[in-house]
C-alpha cells in the first residue's frame, strides 16, 4: 500500500476514505476537508477521528460543562482551573495539590483486570504531568447486582487490577465506593482518582513553546494497544474488513510507570522541562496536538524515531496507539543531555522525536515524507460541539409520584431489628474490607485516615502536619429520581465527609457517568446534573477544578442510572486533630446534628426491604451543609468531639453501626420525642452527622451549636457491647459484625 502523504492526498482528492468506520459523521468529515482545503491523509484522518470522538472532544457535554467555569465561585485557592490535565489548588505553606477522577468503564467490562489497572495508570500520569508527586488514589466502583454471575467475573478482576497497579506504584488507596445495582449490569463503572502534591513553583503545564525546543517521547515502547479501529486504515482497501491483529485492550506495566514517576520527578526537580503531557487516550495524536495547540509555535515530528514494540505498525497506528506508561516532554536543547542521563539512570527509554517550530502547523513525517500538516488547534481544541436535544423523560413524573413514604413500614421492635440487620448486611451497606484489604493503604507512611473512614486523609508535610483529605460520593438512585438534586446530594455528601474528618472542603473534581447522549432523556439527565452540580459548587464556594465525562454507559435502550460521582478535596492544618468515625470511649455522649424528616425516596431502606425506587430524593439545603461543616471543623480543631460520622445511605442506624464496629464499642440510644423510631433510624435526610462528645466538652459543644443555629440532639451514650434502642430492640455487636462483614466475602469468595 502506498504511503498516503500530504502530496498524495492533494493529488487524489476523490480517493474514498473510511471516515464512517472511524466514527466520524458526514458533516465532520466535510469540515476536516474544509479546514485542510483538501482531503485528509490517512494519518490526519486518524488523528481527527480520535480527537473528535466523544471521549476526547467532549462534543456532547461541552456546552453543559461550561457552567463549571461560568458559575465558578471566587476562590483564591484555585491555581489552575479546568482545561489542564488536572486542576491545582493552593493548600498553604507553599504547597499546591492537584487531583482528579477519571473513568475507565468500558475497558474494565471487557478485560476487568487490565481495564481497571490501566485506569489507575492513566489518572496517575495526569497528576504527574502537572508537576506533582502522586500521593494517594481512590476508586469509586459500581457493579451489577451482587449475586449476578457476571459480577463474580468483573468485581474480583477490577479489584485485583486496581490493587495490582496501585500497590506496585506505591500509592496508598485511601477511599472510594462500592455500589451494586442491576442498572450497572454490562456497564460497570470503574472510576479512579489520584491526588498529587507539589510546591507552587513546580506546577507544569501541557504546552509546547520556544522554537528549537526538543520534543521527547519517553517511557514504554509503542505497541499496537487500543488501536483496533484504526487498523482499517492499514488494510489494503478500505472496504476490506479483514480481521485485525491489533488488540483493543491495553495492558499495563506498573513497574514501568513507577520508574516513569521517579524519573519524571527527578527531571522536574532539575527544572529540565518547558512543557509536559502524559500519553493517554489517543496517544501521540493527542499529546502532540494538545502540546502544539496550547503553545505558541508549531511542531515537527519524525514518526520514524518513535521506539516500537511491534515493527509492523503503520504510521497511522503509531499515532493512535494507546500504549501505556509514556510521557511527552518539551525540553530546551541545552537540557536534553541531562534529561537523557536521568532517563538512563531509571532505565527509561527516551527519544527525541521532533521539535517546536516557529510555524503554526503540526507537521509529521514518515520516512522523510510528510503525512500530517494541520493547524493543531483544529485537532485538539476546536472539535465539533453539539447542542444535543434533551427532554425530561415522560416517565419522570410517574417515578417521582411513586412515593416511598407509602411503603409498609416495620411495626414494632422485632421487625425494626430484622430490617436493621438486613440493611447493614446488604451488599451496598456491608463492609467493603474484603476489597479494601487488597489495597495498600500504608505505603508512603503518611496515611492518617483510610477506609472505612468518612474521608481519606494524608499528611503532606511531616514537620508542620499539614494534610489533605478526599472523599468521593455519588448516588445514582437519587440522581435517577431527580438528576439536579442527585448531583447536589453527591456533592453535599462528599463535602460533609471531608468536614466530618476535620478538613475544610476546598475544591471539587467529578466523573459524570451517563448513558447515551443521543437519547434526549439521558441528555436531560446530564444537563440537569451538571446544572445542579455547578449551582451547588457556586453556593458552597468549592470550584470544579476538572473531571471526566463517561457517556454511552448503556446496553441497548437501557441506560445506567445517571451517576455523577463527586470528589471533594479538603485541607487540614494539623492532621493530629483529625476526627475518626469510630466510637472508642465509653461514656461519651452521642449527638445527632441536623434535622430528620420523613425522607425515604431512593433510600437504602426502600431498596433493601422493598426493592423500590420512587418518589423524591432527600431535600437539599446547602446552607445547612455549610453550617454543619463549619461546626464539625471547629469542633475537631478545638477538641470538642472525638468521633464524627456523616449520615447518608442507610441513615442514622447505618452510621451508628459503622461507628460502633470501628471503635469496638456499643451504644445506648433513645428515640427523640419528636420522631418515631423508624424515621429516626432509617430516614436519609441530608445535612446530618453523628458525633461523640466527651462529657467534659458537652456544654461548650452544645453552646456552639445553639449560638450558630445548628440543631443538636443528644440521642445516647457510647456504652456496652450492643446497640440498644431503648424500648425497641438491642443487637449485640458480634451479631452486627457478622451481618456487616460476612456479606461480601460470602458473595465473591
Amino acid at each position: 500500500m502506498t504511503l498516503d502523504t500530504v502530496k498524495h492526498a492533494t493529488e487524489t482528492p476523490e480517493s474514498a476514505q473510511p471516515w464512517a468506520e472511524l466514527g466520524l459523521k458526514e458533516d465532520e468529515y466535510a469540515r476536516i476537508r474544509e479546514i485542510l482545503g483538501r482531503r485528509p491523509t490517512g494519518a490526519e484522518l486518524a488523528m481527527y477521528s480520535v480527537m473528535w470522538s466523544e471521549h476526547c472532544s467532549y462534543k456532547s457535554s461541552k456546552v453543559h460543562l461550561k457552567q463549571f467555569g461560568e458559575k465558578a465561585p471566587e476562590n483564591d485557592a484555585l491555581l489552575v482551573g479546568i482545561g489542564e490535565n488536572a486542576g491545582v489548588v493552593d493548600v498553604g505553606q507553599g504547597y499546591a495539590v492537584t487531583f482528579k477522577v477519571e473513568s475507565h468503564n468500558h475497558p474494565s467490562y471487557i478485560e476487568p483486570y487490565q481495564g481497571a489497572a490501566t485506569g489507575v495508570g492513566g489518572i496517575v500520569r495526569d497528576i504527574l504531568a502537572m508537576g506533582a508527586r502522586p500521593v494517594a488514589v481512590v476508586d469509586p466502583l459500581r457493579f451489577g447486582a451482587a449475586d449476578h454471575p457476571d459480577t463474580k467475573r468483573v468485581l474480583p478482576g477490577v479489584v485485583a487490577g486496581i490493587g495490582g497497579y496501585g500497590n506496585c506504584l506505591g500509592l496508598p488507596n485511601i477511599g472510594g465506593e462500592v455500589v451494586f445495582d442491576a442498572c450497572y449490569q454490562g456497564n460497570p463503572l470503574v472510576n479512579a482518582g489520584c491526588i498529587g502534591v507539589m510546591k507552587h513553583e513546580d506546577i507544569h503545564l501541557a504546552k509546547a513553546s520556544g522554537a528549537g525546543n526538543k520534543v521527547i517521547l519517553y517511557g514504554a515502547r509503542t505497541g499496537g494497544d487500543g488501536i483496533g479501529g484504526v487498523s482499517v486504515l492499514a488494510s489494503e482497501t478500505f472496504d476490506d474488513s479483514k480481521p485485525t491483529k491489533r488488540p483493543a485492550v491495553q495492558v499495563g506495566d506498573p513497574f514501568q510507570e513507577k520508574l516513569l514517576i521517579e524519573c519524571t520527578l527527578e527531571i522536574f526537580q532539575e527544572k529540565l522541562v518547558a512543557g509536559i503531557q502524559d500519553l493517554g487516550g489517543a496517544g501521540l495524536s493527542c499529546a502532540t496536538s494538545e502540546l502544539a495547540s496550547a503553545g505558541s509555535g508549531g511542531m515537527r515530528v519524525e514518526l520514524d524515531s518513535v521506539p516500537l514494540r511491534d515493527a509492523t505498525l503503520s504510521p497511522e497506528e503509531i499515532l493512535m496507539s494507546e500504549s501505556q506508561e509514556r510521557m511527552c516532554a518539551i525540553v530546551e536543547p541545552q537540557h536534553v543531555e541531562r534529561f537523557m542521563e536521568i532517563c538512563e539512570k531509571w532505565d527509561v527509554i527516551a527519544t527525541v522525536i521532533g521539535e517546536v517550530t516557529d510555524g503554526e502547523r503540526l507537521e509529521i513525517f514518515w520516512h522523510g515524507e510528510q503525512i500530517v500538516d494541520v493547524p493543531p488547534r483544529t485537532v485538539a481544541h476546536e472539535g465539533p460541539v453539539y447542542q444535543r436535544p434533551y427532554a425530561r423523560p415522560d416517565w419522570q413524573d410517574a417515578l417521582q409520584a411513586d412515593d416511598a413514604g407509602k411503603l409498609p413500614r416495620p411495626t414494632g421492635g422485632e421487625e425494626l431489628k430484622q430490617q436493621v440487620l438486613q440493611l447493614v448486611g446488604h451488599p451496598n451497606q456491608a463492609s467493603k474490607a474484603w476489597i479494601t484489604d487488597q489495597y495498600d493503604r500504608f505505603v508512603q507512611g503518611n496515611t492518617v485516615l483510610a477506609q472505612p473512614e468518612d474521608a481519606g486523609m494524608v499528611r503532606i508535610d511531616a514537620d508542620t502536619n499539614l494534610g489533605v483529605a478526599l472523599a468521593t460520593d455519588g448516588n445514582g438512585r437519587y440522581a435517577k429520581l431527580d438528576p439536579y438534586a442527585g448531583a447536589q446530594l453527591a456533592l453535599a455528601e462528599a463535602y460533609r465527609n471531608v468536614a466530618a474528618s476535620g478538613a475544610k472542603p476546598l475544591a471539587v473534581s467529578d466523573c459524570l457517568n451517563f448513558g447515551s447522549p443521543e437519547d434526549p432523556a439521558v441528555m436531560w439527565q446530564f444537563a440537569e446534573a451538571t446544572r445542579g452540580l455547578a449551582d451547588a459548587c457556586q453556593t458552597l464556594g468549592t470550584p470544579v477544578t476538572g473531571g471526566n465525562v463517561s457517556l454511552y454507559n448503556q446496553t441497548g435502550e437501557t441506560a445506567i442510572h445517571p451517576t455523577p460521582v463527586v470528589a471533594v478535596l479538603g485541607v487540614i492544618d494539623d492532621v493530629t486533630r483529625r476526627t475518626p468515625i469510630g466510637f472508642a470511649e465509653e461514656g461519651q455522649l452521642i449527638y445527632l446534628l441536623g434535622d430528620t424528616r420523613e425522607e425515604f425516596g431512593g433510600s437504602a431502606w426502600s431498596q433493601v426491604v422493598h426493592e423500590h425506587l420512587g418518589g423524591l430524593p432527600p431535600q437539599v439545603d446547602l446552607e445547612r451543609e455549610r453550617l454543619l461543616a463549619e461546626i464539625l471543623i471547629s469542633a475537631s480543631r478545638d477538641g470538642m468531639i472525638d468521633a464524627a460520622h456523616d449520615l447518608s445511605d442507610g441513615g442514622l442506624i447505618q452510621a451508628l453501626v459503622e461507628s460502633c464496629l470501628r471503635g469496638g464499642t456499643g451504644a445506648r440510644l433513645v428515640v427523640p420525642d419528636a420522631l418515631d423510631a423508624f424515621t429516626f433510624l432509617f430516614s436519609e435526610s441530608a445535612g446530618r452527622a453523628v458525633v461523640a462528645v466527651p462529657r467534659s466538652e458537652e456544654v461548650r459543644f452544645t453552646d456552639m451549636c445553639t449560638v450558630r443555629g445548628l440543631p443538636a440532639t443528644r440521642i445516647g451514650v457510647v456504652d456496652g457491647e450492643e446497640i440498644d434502642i431503648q424500648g425497641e430492640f438491642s443487637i449485640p455487636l458480634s451479631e452486627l459484625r457478622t451481618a456487616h462483614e460476612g456479606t461480601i466475602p460470602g458473595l465473591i469468595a
Partner: protein
Amino acid sequence: MTSRIGVITFPGTLDDRDTQRAVGLAGAEAVPLWHRDKDLKQVDAVVLPGGFSYGDYLRAGAISRFSPVMETVIEQAKAGLPVLGICNGFQVLTETHLLPGAMLRNNHLHFICRDQKLRVENASTAWTADYEAGQEISIPLKNIDGRYTADERTLDELEAEGRVVFRYLDGNPNGSLRDIAGITNAAGNVVGLMPHPEHAVEPLIGTGRTDGLGFFTSILKKLVGA
C-alpha cells in the same frame, strides 16, 4: 558520630523513603544506597526495604538479587554486617540464600493489607534487642507473596536454633509454614520479615501505633554499644 544505616533503592522499591524516615526517628543517619553502586558508603548496617522491585516480575526479589549492590551486601553480610530485609527485602534475602527458604503466593491468592499481630520469638538479634522475647507487637502487613516455605529439615533447624524471629498471631494471614513471619541467619546479623516495622513508627500515622520503632532503636544501640 552517629551510626549510618544504608537504605537500598532498587527500581520499584516503594518504602525506601519511609525506612529512611524511621531510621532518622530512631536517631541514626539514613544513607541512601543505589542498586547500581557496589559501594556501600561505609554504612554500619543495611536495610532492604519493601516494594515491588522489578515489578516482582519472575518472582519477588529474583531480579534485584543480581544487582551490583547485592554483591557487596552478600559479601559483607557473611562477614557480619547487620542486614534487615522487610517484605520485598526479605524476598531478596531468600533469593540470595542469605536466609533459607522461599516465599510463595499467599494461600488465598490475594494481596492482603492489614494490621498484623506478631510475637517476637527471638529478642537477641541485631534488629530485635529492644524487644523482649514473647512480646506481642502489631505492625502493618501488606503483600501478595508472603507465604514462607522451607523443607521440614530446614524448618526444624530454624526452630531448634531459635532462628524463627517472629510468628504471626491471631490467624495466619498467608499460609506461612509454622506461622513464620520472620527469621534470622545463624549469626543473628541478617533478619528478614514480611510485615513492615517502618510503617509503625509514628503515632496517628498508619495504624497509629509505634511498635515498629524498636527495630531501628535496636540496631542503633547495638552499633553505638559496639
